[in-house]
């Protein structure tokens, strides 16, 4: 006789599905300013709690409060806000292009703009991002020519990647933007390797690794952490927790058992959890971690808490798997509105200027789109000849023969 009951198989469930009321009561939101700001040479053991709380700077009235409130230069704030508005305008327009059949695919970063943009503003020339497909803000914040981004999206005759790569998987070395892979997680560990190289060569450059909540499940994420832990390279390990991975909520990636920031603890890596919709917090924490890396104190993991407002991609329909109102119920709000309010409050911005900026960027995107379209849209423009180039440095005989056979 056994007194063991039959085991049960556990599968985590989100708090709501279509038809349900959105429920974010499980997300604890500490008061802005409540999290301490440790010195950059802190021992990871002393800040374990920072992986469970949420570092926030802006209070509900738009004031910057607490130890992470920095005296951010006005031009930085201004550029940050404008870049976010510009990125949103860009995303909207590119979505339309896809619907018009001018490109095959697009992914928006709506609601997550502050993360890539503020982080980028805290970085220096020569550093290298290993981005995912949702960090277009890194390029837009650096004023990389928008028309070149669209050329890539359209795979046209001026596409810097010659039509070879899927839209939005940009590669822009000069802007510290490593070629984006479509395979999840692979690049998180490469960023660690790049940072190891910087240390091996006695350089002062750092790497920024990027991954989504869902993709932290990939083995490469863990490979990145163990290598970062062992070699202490100058890398910032960014986890963008936007709550969803296509249709899987963050619990399917293990997010209900521990925060994504806490993953770093098993590896002795200092780790911070941050309100990713709070531009001021993102900028301050990014600067802290970047400085830590550059001063030789090693890796930091940062979990940016945010929400994927948009569908996963143009192929996705979130109304099939999450409550319709979930995005408007998201308790951390809209990063653009929050920074806008803060700046209005400080007398740096106004509603009129906001509307003006929206119109201006919408016009900029339209003009850039028009220019890009003059070089061709999907399926017209990119040369078949290019298909055979860049497989190897020197084209081997078999490819030469195949190219000849194709007659290009």
């Amino acid at each position, binding site marked *: 006789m056994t007194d063991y009951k039959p085991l*049960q*198989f556990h*599968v985590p*469930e989100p708090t709501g*599905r279509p038809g349900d009321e959105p429920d974010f009561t499980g997300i604890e939101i500490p008061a802005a300013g409540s999290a301490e700001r440790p010195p950059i040479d802190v021992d990871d053991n002393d800040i374990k709690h920072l992986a469970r709380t949420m570092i926030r700077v802006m209070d509900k009235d738009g004031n910057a409060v607490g130890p992470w409130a920095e005296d951010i230069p006005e031009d930085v704030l201004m550029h940050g806000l404008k870049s976010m508005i510009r990125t949103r305008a860009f995303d909207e327009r590119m979505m339309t292009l896809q619907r018009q059949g001018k490109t*095959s*695919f697009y992914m928006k970063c709506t609601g997550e703009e502050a993360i890539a943009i503020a982080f980028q503003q805290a970085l220096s020339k020569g550093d290298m991002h290993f981005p995912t497909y949702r960090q277009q803000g890194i390029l837009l914040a650096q004023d990389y020519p928008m028309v070149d981004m669209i050329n890539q999206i359209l*795979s046209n005759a001026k*596409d810097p990647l010659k*039509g*070879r*790569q*899927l*839209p939005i*998987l940009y590669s822009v070395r000069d802007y510290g933007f490593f070629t984006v*892979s*479509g*395979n*999840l*997680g692979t690049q998180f560990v490469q960023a660690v390797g790049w940072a190891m190289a910087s240390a091996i060569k006695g350089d002062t450059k750092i790497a920024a690794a990027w991954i989504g909540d*869902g*993709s932290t*499940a*990939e*083995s*490469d994420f863990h490979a990145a952490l163990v290598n970062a832990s062992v070699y202490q390279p100058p890398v910032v390990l960014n986890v963008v927790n936007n709550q969803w*991975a*296509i*249709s*899987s909520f963050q619990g*399917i*990636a*293990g997010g209900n058992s521990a925060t994504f920031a806490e993953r770093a603890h098993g590896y002795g890596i200092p780790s911070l959890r941050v309100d990713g919709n709070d531009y001021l917090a993102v900028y301050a924490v990014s600067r802290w971690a970047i400085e830590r890396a550059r001063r030789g104190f090693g890796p930091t993991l940062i979990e940016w808490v945010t929400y994927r407002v948009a569908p996963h991609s143009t*192929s996705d329909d979130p109304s*099939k*798997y999450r409550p319709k109102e979930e995005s408007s119920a998201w308790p951390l709000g809209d990063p653009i509105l929050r920074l806008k309010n803060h700046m209005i409050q400080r007398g740096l911005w106004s509603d009129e200027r906001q509307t003006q900026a929206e119109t201006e960027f919408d016009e900029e995107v339209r003009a850039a789109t028009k220019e890009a379209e003059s070089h061709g849209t*999907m*399926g017209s*423009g*990119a*040369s*078949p000849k*290019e*298909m*055979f180039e860049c*497989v190897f440095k020197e084209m081997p005989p*078999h*490819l030469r023969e*195949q190219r000849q056979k*194709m007659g*290009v």
Partner: protein
Amino acid sequence: MPQMNMIDAIRDAMDVKMAEDDNVVVFGEDVGYFGGVFRCTHGLQEKYGTSRVFDSPINESGIVGTAIGMAAYGLRPCVEIQFADYIYPAYDQIVSEAARMRYRSSAEFTSPLVIRTPCGGGIFGGQTHSQSPESLFTHISGVKTVIVSNPYDAKGMLISAIEDDDPVIFFEPKRLYNGPFDGHHDRPAKNWSTHPKGDVPEGHYTVPIGKADVVSEGSDVTILTYGTMVYVAEAVKQETGIDAEIIDLRSLLPLDIDTIVASVKKTGRCMVLHEATLTSGFGAELAAQVQERCFYHLEVPVGRVTGWDTPYPHAQEWDYFPGPARVGAELKAMMESV
């Protein structure tokens, strides 16, 4: 008989097996509540519960590794890898574990699992949504490799695969999910409702693994192909008037060599078509076997038409894809060469 597209047929196969056998479990990225990005598991979680149909963390090695563990326990996992392009993190589990389990334990432990995965191009998916990695699996000794081309076979072979006591990699050409695509991308898409293989019986039936299908008889040349290229071959036959015998291999490993040999001995010519790259592709194996067994019957060397030896490009998709124009020209050249 019900009309089904390939998605419905695949779902129905899992449904039939899950109803029959409690040991069948289905999981993978987005396959649970949502029902899969291609909807192949839609409705199964609602019907069979979260203990038998569930979402996996995004970790392909974990999907296959846990499936192997479940299979060792006695379950019959049928897992999905969202795109064949994402199967590589699971490759170690497939090659070093699933494929070796029976051999290294002298059949004490086995891996009766199915790995379903959409493959092939034609959807402007770029290099990470278009690959055809079948030859990476036929090469490793110990996994069966299937690639289906229509709803009828898809259901019957998936049931066979789930019932099989060895691991099966089950490729689903995604461009065929909604209709037989013949490579004429500029023409209106056809759907399965007008195709005889879209008639799919209800309930249980099997299509055996290891048996090829002669989809069109002919006397001039044998075309060995599978997946999407079956329809390209049919289009070419029609457009060129060349009397080709078209064989849909369906199962690459085990291979129905008898059907192949009988056909090539009859026609005296053989062309191999696949979407995957040329070098070390499955076509190389086919060409070798055909010349070993049919050398004195061949009037011309075995020809191969395949994807070029480059990563799958995005914009140049139709230059890359071995469509009817390229295949037709090669076939004509083959017919004229003697």
